[in-house]
């Protein structure tokens, strides 16, 4: 096996494992406190992915999109608990379990009704100027207004907007229209003004003349209306650099590269290309896990959470509001699932669909069981292991011609093997309490 072959698989496996870990933590936290397997957790993950993709498609950047998904899922998680689980707190354990299954089915169908049954594509994050070429307006005045408004944008330094849909033909159309109108009414004051504005635009607006694909983006060439080098091109270049935050070397005399969004680009390490989004997923996952670990181990609220998980009545005798702690558990678990959802959508890049929570949910739940249900470190470890095993299995099975779809089956076999030897999972405790 060559490094060049295994490295990309490992990169993938680690980010998939991190995402599974984020979701598994939610299962394990709720189980730890309520001894309930929250089957609706997979649907919370799916909702997070949807909200994230919708926000990204609306042009939000990644962090606000993730924040929106977290907020939505936190409210969703607490609402599910309030509506479906809280009334059954003192009921036999089977009742909330069945309610959780029902909640899962309900949420999946609600998502289908609200967000549709088709796949919602993950948006292209790169700037899209060459993609939105518009047809030039027929009316000369409208056209010149359009051109003039772009001129304003150039003056404001908004090159990305100004260049949208610009192409040489527009000027020819505008010029011809103007000439036709002059033939009808040579002395119109408005016409003179329009001509002046057009001339000004010709000199100053950089226009796209050619778009070429290059390895990690697009190369956009632009020139002025007459085809000469623009008078103010050096200014244009400098400002364009600042506006688009691109390196100086990327802008040549009258060419500019429109670089892909950083999350759609990669970098080379040891002859292997790594997508920037992969280390981003590792970093986010690691940071959240460490933050959670700190909260649980070192803060008063975290201590109260552990106390509630061990003994609700006694925790209440300490003055802990058990219901608030349960709510907080749902908030944290659901927010982490939301982050997992957005990162999962980002990682796969294809899109999101209302059924996606089922499979990922089952895998993340298995991860929680593998690590020892109720144990947060165990969920992180289990998630990572299941992610790595699934990914490597998909790859190798695919290579052997068995079919990558059996990848998760291998992960489940490993789970069964581990549970046979250690029924409490890898880090699960067989807690012995002394009288």
């Amino acid at each position, binding site marked *: 096996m060559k490094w060049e072959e295994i490295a990309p698989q490992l990169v993938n496996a680690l980010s998939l494992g991190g995402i599974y870990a984020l979701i598994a933590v939610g299962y394990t936290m709720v189980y730890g406190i309520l001894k309930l397997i929250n089957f609706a957790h997979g649907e919370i993950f799916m909702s997070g992915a949807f909200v994230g993709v919708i926000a990204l498609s609306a042009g939000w950047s990644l962090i606000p999109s993730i924040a929106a998904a977290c907020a939505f899922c936190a409210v969703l998680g607490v609402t599910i608990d309030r509506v479906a689980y809280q009334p059954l707190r003192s009921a036999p354990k089977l009742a909330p379990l069945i309610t959780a299954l029902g909640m899962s089915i309900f949420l999946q169908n609600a998502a289908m009704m609200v967000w549709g049954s088709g796949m919602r594509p993950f948006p292209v994050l790169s700037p899209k100027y060459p993609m939105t070429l518009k047809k030039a307006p027929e009316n000369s005045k409208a056209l010149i207004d359009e051109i003039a408004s772009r001129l304003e944008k150039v003056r404001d330094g908004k090159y990305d907007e100004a260049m949208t849909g610009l192409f040489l033909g527009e000027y020819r159309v505008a010029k011809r229209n103007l000439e036709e109108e002059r033939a009808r009414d040579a002395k119109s004051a408005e016409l003179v003004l329009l001509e002046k504005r057009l001339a000004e635009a010709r000199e100053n607006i950089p226009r796209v003349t050619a778009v070429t694909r290059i390895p990690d983006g697009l190369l956009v060439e632009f020139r002025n209306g007459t085809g000469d080098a623009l008078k103010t091109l050096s200014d244009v270049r400098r400002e364009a650099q600042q506006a688009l935050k691109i390196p100086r070397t990327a802008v040549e005399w009258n060419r500019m590269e429109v670089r892909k969004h950083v999350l759609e680009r990669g970098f080379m390490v040891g002859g292997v290309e790594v997508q920037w989004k992969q280390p981003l997923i590792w970093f986010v996952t690691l940071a959240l896990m460490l933050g959670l670990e700190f909260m649980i181990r070192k803060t*008063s609220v975290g*201590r109260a959470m*552990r106390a509630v998980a061990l003994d609700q009545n*006694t925790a209440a*005798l300490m*003055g802990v509001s058990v219901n608030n702690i349960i709510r907080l558990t749902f908030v944290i678990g659901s927010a982490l699932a939301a982050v997992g959802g957005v990162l999962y959508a980002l990682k796969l890049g294809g899109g999101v669909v209302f059924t996606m929570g089922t499979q990922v949910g089952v895998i993340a739940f298995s991860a929680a069981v593998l690590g020892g249900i109720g144990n947060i470190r165990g969920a992180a470890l289990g998630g990572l292991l299941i992610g790595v095993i699934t990914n490597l299995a998909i790859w190798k099975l695919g290579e052997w011609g068995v079919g990558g779809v059996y990848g998760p089956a291998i992960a489940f076999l490993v789970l069964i093997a581990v549970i046979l030897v250690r029924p409490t999972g890898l880090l699960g405790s067989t*807690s012995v309490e*002394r009288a």
Partner: protein
Amino acid sequence: MLKLNGVTAGYGHLEVLHGISLEVAEGEIVTLIGANGAGKTTTLNAICSLVRVRDGSIELAGRDITRAPTNTIVRAGVAQVPEGRKLFAELTVHENLDMGAYLRKEKDGVLADLKKVFGLFPILEERQWQTAGSLSGGEQQMCAIGRALMAKPKLLLLDEPSLGLAPLVCRQIFDVIRELNREGTTILLVEQNAHAALRLAHRAYVMETGTIKLTGKAEDLLKDEKVKSAYLGE
């Protein structure tokens, strides 16, 4: 300080308390004695709203706390040392003591009380980084009392603190209870060890199958023939 008026409570269809009335004045040690299953623990749990009160009322310092959420009752100054210690076994001794002070915000006061608990039970200071589950029975009881003290309670409810302890440890714990009372903590003590409890307490209630059968000064009950034969084994 604490007043129960005809409190009825139970679990599911089973009614355990059939109209309990009792009173604990400020600065008193009152003990509640009786056989297994008489409803002593249920009485304490009713005071703390861990068991739902069906009828009757409970007052704390003139305030009605019947069916109030447990954490408000704790906030009002009630701490319970539950039956069987109920320590958080996987948390360290130190963390257990911190849990006792969960509602308190003044760091200095909490630190001072931690020092005080370590002064009362030096073994806890030695074992503070061990998990509570690894302590011996007597140490666990000390930890449970220490945890309740960390709340700086006005009223301390103790449920069978001597259960399963060696006589020496038992005496040490009763000494601590007397000491706490001398410092001004009001105490309601549930005990099976009626002899020790009656010698410690000012007043006593004798419970039988969910009702109060007898009440009076502890020293009088120590001499009462019925109490002697039923609870003191004389």
